[in-house]
């Protein structure tokens, strides 16, 4: 109950010292206004609205952090209309630096990953593109794991962006069509709680902050490392087990010809069989009807 009241109290300017510093209420007096945005000098705009309720529920607020812990030096009477960066990218790059001031280990790992390899490239994600900064959730939560196919899919199904790097946009579809994706889909729609035994999502195989290119020897999903990656969940998986996963390929005469052949067999067999049976049913009915009218 108290937790639900807190944002209200905060909005009323009542201090809630256990969870947030006094200043938050002052910030939310302006930034709690839905739809607040600012135009960027480099084009586009940036949302300046923060949902106080969601922020209070975030892990950072739960740790007792307040606005100015990240937005250092901001005062209630700061000048409006001034932005410290000209573009969205410059802003998110700056915010990543703020994250790194506490999460230095993660920042180091991320810098060595494919996603962290070029901080100025707007096609690559900064911290805030995956972690919604004002409502960061506990990373061990089931609901975060179940969201990863959508989260990663945001960029990885974007034809324009993926084309530049020769990356298939089929990765999410092929994942979802397989066993892991089917289970994840149902668990996301259903009532997954902390006890739910989760199927593998993107990050379980590819890693999180340490994702490498798929031809990098350090990649978890390169053939040489794949068995070990499978064994993280499938304890004691034998060496031939990883071949069960078609590595995001659709079955074709070149990739997984056996699977493709089975598909072709049924593509022919189902219409052939049903066509024959329905034709015979049709003839039977026709014959009976003709007999009756005679």
């Amino acid at each position, binding site marked *: 109950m108290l937790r639900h009241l807190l944002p209200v109290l905060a909005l009323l300017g009542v201090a809630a010292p256990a969870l947030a510093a006094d200043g938050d209420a002052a910030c939310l007096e302006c930034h709690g206004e839905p739809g607040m945005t600012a135009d960027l000098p480099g084009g586009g705009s940036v949302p300046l609205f923060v949902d106080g309720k969601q922020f209070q529920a975030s892990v950072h607020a739960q740790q007792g952090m307040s606005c100015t812990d990240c937005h250092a030096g901001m005062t209630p009477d700061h000048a409006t209309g001034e932005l410290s960066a000209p573009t969205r990218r410059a802003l998110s790059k700056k915010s990543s630096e703020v994250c790194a001031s506490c999460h230095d280990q993660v920042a180091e790992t991320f810098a060595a990953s494919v996603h962290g390899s070029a901080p100025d490239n707007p096609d690559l994600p900064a911290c805030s593109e995956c972690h919604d900064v004002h409502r960061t959730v506990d990373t061990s939560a089931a609901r975060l794991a179940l969201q990863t196919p959508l989260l990663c899919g945001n960029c990885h199904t974007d034809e324009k962006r993926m084309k530049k790097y020769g990356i298939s946009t089929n990765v999410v579809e092929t994942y979802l069509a397989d066993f892991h994706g089917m289970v994840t*889909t149902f*668990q996301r729609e*259903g009532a997954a709680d902390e006890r739910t*035994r989760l199927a593998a999502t993107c990050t379980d195989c590819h890693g999180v902050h340490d994702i490498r290119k798929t031809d990098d020897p350090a990649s978890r999903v390169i053939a040489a490392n794949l068995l070990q990656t499978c064994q993280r969940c499938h304890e004691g998986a034998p060496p031939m087990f990883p071949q069960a996963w078609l590595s995001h390929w659709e079955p074709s005469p070149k990739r997984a010809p056996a699977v493709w052949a089975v598909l072709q067999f049924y593509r022919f067999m189902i219409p052939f069989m049903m066509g024959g*049976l329905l034709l015979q*049913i049709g003839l*039977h009915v026709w014959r009976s009807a003709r007999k009756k009218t005679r």
Partner: protein
Amino acid sequence: MSADPRTPAVRTGANAEGESAAPQIVRFSRAQRIEHVLVMVLFVTLCVTGFPQKFYTQRWAEVLVGAFGGIDQTRLIHHLAGYVLAIVTVIHFASALAAMLTRSRPFSMMPTRKDFEDVFRQLRHYLGTDRQPLYDRYTYKEKFEYWGLVMGNVIMITTGFVLAFPLQVTALLPGVLIPAAKMAHSNEGLMALMVITFWHMFNVHLNPETFPIDKVIFTGKMSRERYAHEHPLELARLEGRPPPSEEDAHAAAAPSGVAPRGEGDR
């Protein structure tokens, strides 16, 4: 090969009160009727827990899975029903094999040359250019469905085990067997559902001669009149008569005065 009753008995039709009713022939033994009900219940269970997994993006799939208490429980029910069906199938094969070895039953489910001739004759009959073929215990339609179910069962159970035990399977065999088994399991299941929905349901429910439902598989009994009409060759054998000639069979199927259902049309 089939699980026939030893010697289908001709019942005089006299019931306990001694009143005479239409003579009945026992077509299916108690074991066969129980087996049919079991397979029917298992088939429906496997469909409602299996197809949501194939069509996982559909709203109805979500509703069904929710009704079973989530995907984990849905899969558990599917696996349990699969194991029971596997046991039923093994028992069916074992009893058929035992019957073959002891020669205690006729192999009336075996396809014969006559079945292939019957297919074309039946089709010609539908077109009005030939007479209805005279059938023995099982028509080619029944044999087709029986063997389709048996073969389909073997495929579903084999691939089902491959999918349920991927670690054990890939310890011995290539991993690509798993997605191949999944492809076969999901498509074979779809084909089975379509055959049952259209073919089996038409023949037992919508067939003009048996509409609205053919109860023989549940009661085990069929009237002698209908037997003479649908399985004249078997009836003659049961009654120790020589096989009827075409003329006799068609005449018997349409006794003077009363026109039976379908007017000898089947």
